[in-house]
């Protein structure tokens, strides 16, 4: 087991030598990176390159075959892969958010928008209906959803609204880090733009860290400070977003960047 290097400014999240095998199939192999508080990291790569596997390992949704995920929780630096399930579930629940590509997976579709936002508050022990309601309304406004729709089911929302609701439901208990799995895929371009706009405002306002998995390089450029490029389960290149996108070194990254259609 690798020890986390102890230095003055500790990262919020440190992934070291993370590997996941599905039988003989490689999910991701020997991945390592760190995320500082307030930093937005992008993981890009074509579909099947292991991006989502990596994110699921970090979120504790699948157990990695090897390696560690250190998280700087309020109880100190904790290896999420080697701590008790009770502790890991508590940290994941209270200090991280997870936004899925398909809002139906991340939201409770048979519960109203307000209930979805209030879910994490009530899980955190809030037992005052009036306060929960007030916070739900405030968050709807922040993600640009009409507060009048607080009692509507998410199923009646458009794709973009569902995604913004999912973001609100995850941010309401002020997590330290957001893990996002292709939050903008499947939305049309103008809706994407609005979602990104909302995300940018929130990220800068809340000093939130984020790991964003995407295959959309435009989204990555707009939101991420640093980028990691994955190919067939391995990390092939990393650096500042502009550096990677404007001056890619690896042939695979060059291919990835050049294959973006320009209108």
């Amino acid at each position, binding site marked *: 087991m690798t020890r986390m290097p102890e230095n003055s400014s500790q990262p919020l999240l440190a992934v070291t030598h993370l590997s996941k095998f599905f039988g003989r199939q490689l999910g991701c192999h020997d991945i390592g990176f760190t995320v500082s508080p307030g930093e937005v990291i992008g993981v890009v790569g074509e579909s099947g390159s292991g991006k989502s596997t990596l994110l699921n390992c970090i979120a504790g949704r699948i157990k990695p075959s090897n390696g560690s995920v250190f998280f700087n929780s309020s109880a100190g630096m904790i290896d999420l892969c080697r701590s008790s399930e009770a502790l890991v579930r*508590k940290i994941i629940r209270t200090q991280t958010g997870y936004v899925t590509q398909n809002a139906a997976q991340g939201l409770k579709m048979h*519960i*109203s928008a307000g209930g979805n936002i*209030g879910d994490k508050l*009530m899980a955190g022990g809030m037992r*005052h209906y009036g306060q929960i309601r007030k916070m739900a309304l405030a968050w709807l406004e922040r993600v640009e959803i009409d507060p009048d729709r607080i009692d509507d089911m998410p199923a009646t929302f458009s794709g973009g609204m569902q995604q913004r609701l999912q973001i609100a439901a995850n941010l309401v208990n002020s997590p330290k880090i957001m893990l996002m799995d292709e939050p903008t895929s499947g939305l049309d371009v103008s809706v994407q733009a609005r979602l990104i706009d909302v995300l940018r405002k929130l990220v800068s306002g809340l000093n939130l860290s984020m790991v964003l998995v995407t295959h959309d390089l435009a989204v990555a450029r707009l939101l991420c400070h640093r980028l990691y490029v994955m190919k067939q389960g391995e990390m092939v290149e990393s650096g500042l977003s502009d550096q990677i996108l404007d001056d890619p070194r690896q042939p695979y990254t060059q291919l990835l960047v050049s294959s973006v259609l320009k209108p």
Partner: protein
Amino acid sequence: MPLSYNFAYLDEQSKKMIRRSILKALAIPGFQVPFGGREMPLPYGWGTGGIQLTAAVIGPDDRLKVIDQGSDDTVNAISIKAFFKKTAGIAITEETRSATIIQTRHRIPETPLQNGQIMVFQVPIPEPLQFIEPKKSQTAKMHGFEEYGSMHVKLYEDIAKFGRIATAFDYPVQVHQRYIMSPSPIPKYDNPKLHRSPAVHLFGAGREKRIYAVPPYTDVVSLDFEDYPFELEKWDGACAVCGSTDSFLDEIITDDTGTRMFICSDTEYCQKKAGNTFS
């Protein structure tokens, strides 16, 4: 008593297995203990869980009372009483006070229970978290790690929709400051009767094959919000038969012009209060 059946229908090994589960359930109040539910000669949904519990705990000296919707003389109650009379030859009573075992479908009797009595509930859905999380593997973990916050989401939805907690039956409770439990389809009016009750309360779900229990003198607290506290149902009228104002009343429509009357749901309590004697 026909010789073709073992005492109280179930074979001794099955009863032993059920008793073992009951003991575990009593040791961990509110925790759902899986058990090897047997086929009973009545369909699921008619009280197969309750009937197995009764069969496991009943002895030749017991006096059994069975109620369905508070009533002693509905089809389900009469059939179950006949079943045990036939297979166990035990005494049957309608009187709450003299019964040693009371099997019930929806109510806890109005007459206060005493130490030494056993309540047996027929439970359709033992999992209170099912509304929030349909996966059993997940609900087991939520119970294990005490992740109960989302239980309030159901109550939140009620207030958002109706302006009050509209859940009127199967109102979730927390037992012994630990497990969230479904009190089976009793009206929330009966929830406070579980709190520190001197009797033993056993819950059996036949289809789901789960047993849980509330031992005597155990805390049973109904969930609520600080600004929307747990409340009991209230009625405008009194019972038309016995005049009771402190029992659970059924509203009965008596003609097609909307005339209605309130009557006690607990027939034994009502009869007694009205001064009728028992056969």
